[in-house]
């Protein structure tokens, strides 16, 4: 093949990539939104309250998804985020009730950080696959959260906490939206615009290349899992604030939703490529899908089937484009 031909082919595939792959999630989001807007126009879908509910409901998932983008971009996985949420929410709730706001928030975030540190150390320095490590901690933490308060729910009565992490608002915007916006903005900035973000991508893309280029690969692996643990801790605080209570089941069913949001949002399972904004839109898409399918009055089993099919389609389209 002559160079000119190669260049033309490369340029063409480059253009195609830009057009399709990166925007699958956005097209999907808009299409689903329009569909619900038309079909459910008399069923309350388009009300401000409902749309804002979607954003508020997805806040914890979005925040966990940001962590998972870092982890997956580095070529690792964190299956323990769901059970981390239960532990951190309970840790925060119990501590707030005894020692007040600051201690409670630190306990929640600290518990998440510690879990991430343990996961990360096992992966980075003991050199175990993150899939196995976090699968094990997933089960371990589910046990820990159950034993922490003996299966009891813990009410959170601290008004400031509930305002900060739950039902409060600032400048007319609900606090859960603030947390989402802050986490997305900071996550995007770190992911796209810092050397750390570039090193995360390089590690997931080609760990050997990263290593011989002077990147401290083990430290990157440790750090992404710590980020993920800490963000799961923040998600735990948001759940506790929103429900004004903590319970061991919090977050346990979120793992699949978070993974779906991240993948639909354009992050590769095997690392090297991803998007924080994509994960946000993916997460909103999951929330919108739940919301719209419920409002359509479908039976529970039909909701599950339709949701599964749409996620499958979205994942298929976004992965096929990338993994040619």
């Amino acid at each position, binding site marked *: 093949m002559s160079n000119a031909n190669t260049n033309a082919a490369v340029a063409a595939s480059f253009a195609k990539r830009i057009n399709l792959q990166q925007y699958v999630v956005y097209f999907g989001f808009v299409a689903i939104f329009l569909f619900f807007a038309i079909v459910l126009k008399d069923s309350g879908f388009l009300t401000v309250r409902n749309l804002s509910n979607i954003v508020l409901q997805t806040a914890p998932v979005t925040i966990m998804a940001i962590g998972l983008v870092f982890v997956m971009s580095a070529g690792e996985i964190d299956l323990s985020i769901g059970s981390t949420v239960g532990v951190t929410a309970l840790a925060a709730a119990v501590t707030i009730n005894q020692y007040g706001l600051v201690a409670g928030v630190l306990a929640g975030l600290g518990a998440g950080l510690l879990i991430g540190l343990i996961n990360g150390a096992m992966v980075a320095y003991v050199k175990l696959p993150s899939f196995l490590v976090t699968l094990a901690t997933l089960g371990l933490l589910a046990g820990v959260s159950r034993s922490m308060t003996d299966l009891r729910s813990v009410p959170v009565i601290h008004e400031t906490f509930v305002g900060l992490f739950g039902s409060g608002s600032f400048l007319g915007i609900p606090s859960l939206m603030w947390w989402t916006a802050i986490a997305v903005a900071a996550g995007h900035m770190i992911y796209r615009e810092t050397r750390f973000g570039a090193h995360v991508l390089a590690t997931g893309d080609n760990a050997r290349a990263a290593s011989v280029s002077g990147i401290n690969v083990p430290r990157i692996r440790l750090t992404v899992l710590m980020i993920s643990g800490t963000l799961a801790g923040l998600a735990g605080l948001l759940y506790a604030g929103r429900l004004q209570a903590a*319970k061991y*089941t919090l977050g346990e069913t979120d793992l699949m939703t978070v993974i779906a949001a991240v993948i639909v949002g354009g992050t590769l399972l095997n690392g090297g490529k991803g998007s924080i904004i994509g994960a946000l839109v993916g997460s909103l898409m999951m929330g919108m899908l739940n919301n719209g399918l419920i409002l359509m009055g*479908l039976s529970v089993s039909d909701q599950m089937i339709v949701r599964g099919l749409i996620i499958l389609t979205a994942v298929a389209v976004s992965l096929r484009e990338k993994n040619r």
Partner: protein
Amino acid sequence: MLERIIAAAFAGGLIFAAANFANAQTVGPQGEAATPSSSVTLSDADIATLKGKGYKAALLWHTSSDFTNAVSAGAKDEFARGGINIVVTTDAQFDAARQRSDIETALAAKPNVILALPLDPVTSAEAFRQAVKDGTKLVFLSNLPKGYKHGTDYASIVTDDLFQMGKQAADAMAKAIGGKGKVGYIFHDATYYVTNQRDKAFKTTIEKDYPDIKIVAEQGISDPARAEELASAMLLQHPDLDGIYVTWAEPADGVLSALRNAGNPKTKIVTLDLAEPEALDMVKGGNVAALVADKAYELGRAMAAAGMKSLLGQETPPFVVAPALTVTKDNVAQGWKDSLNRNAPQSVLDAAK
């Protein structure tokens, strides 16, 4: 039916804690007397008033199972009489946060009445707050959000009668073994409210009402998969047992298998909840003598009726109890319909012919 047991386990601060065994009846969270579900009905005039109002209902369940399907069916049929459409059905998958999201989403469809199983009193208190604020009529199944007041916050709680289930199991056992003899007692060895209450009611009834029946062997079980070995051991020590009570149908599989392996056709089994293998053994004249079930369809019907009464501005009973149902060889087909609102499995119907 394990889902239901788990559901109850999830339901942290259960309301039946006040169930009073000395008086042998179930009472409500604030000590309310139980109203039988059969008395919660709408008159023709009520139905006529409701029709054409265009009211909407939402069913917010904790899981998806045989049980919730039957409750939904009962609610749907009863609502249909009053011309009320079910616009939303959800499954929170035992997730408290998800239940809150489900409630918020359902409210966008502006339902006039919500039937729901609050996952746990603490987390559901905040979750259902917006529904109360919106003026939606709430009818709860089995559980009550903490601090909610009857009349202002919710219309009714409807629940099945756990005490009756255990008692009827004891009555069925007594009948099967002729009112006297030795029985084994296999109870659920875990703090799960539903099974614990039923097990306790069985034991209490045998001890109080049947002085000629002795519980000679007691065995706790937490893992249904171990039922067979536990039952085998029990039979080894007490080969002359007249009957065995098993806490629910799944471990009864193992007990049944132990009896078959021992070539024992005479020891009778009584267990709770409807399940195909036990029903099949029962209609074939095997060891199983009776299955005691709740009336899930009736629970749903009563919930819908209470909700509609509330919409009409009528007084609603705070605490409604649906009866338990003893299913034997003679009423197996009807029993399945009454409990789960569907036909018994074909194999059972064929064998019953």
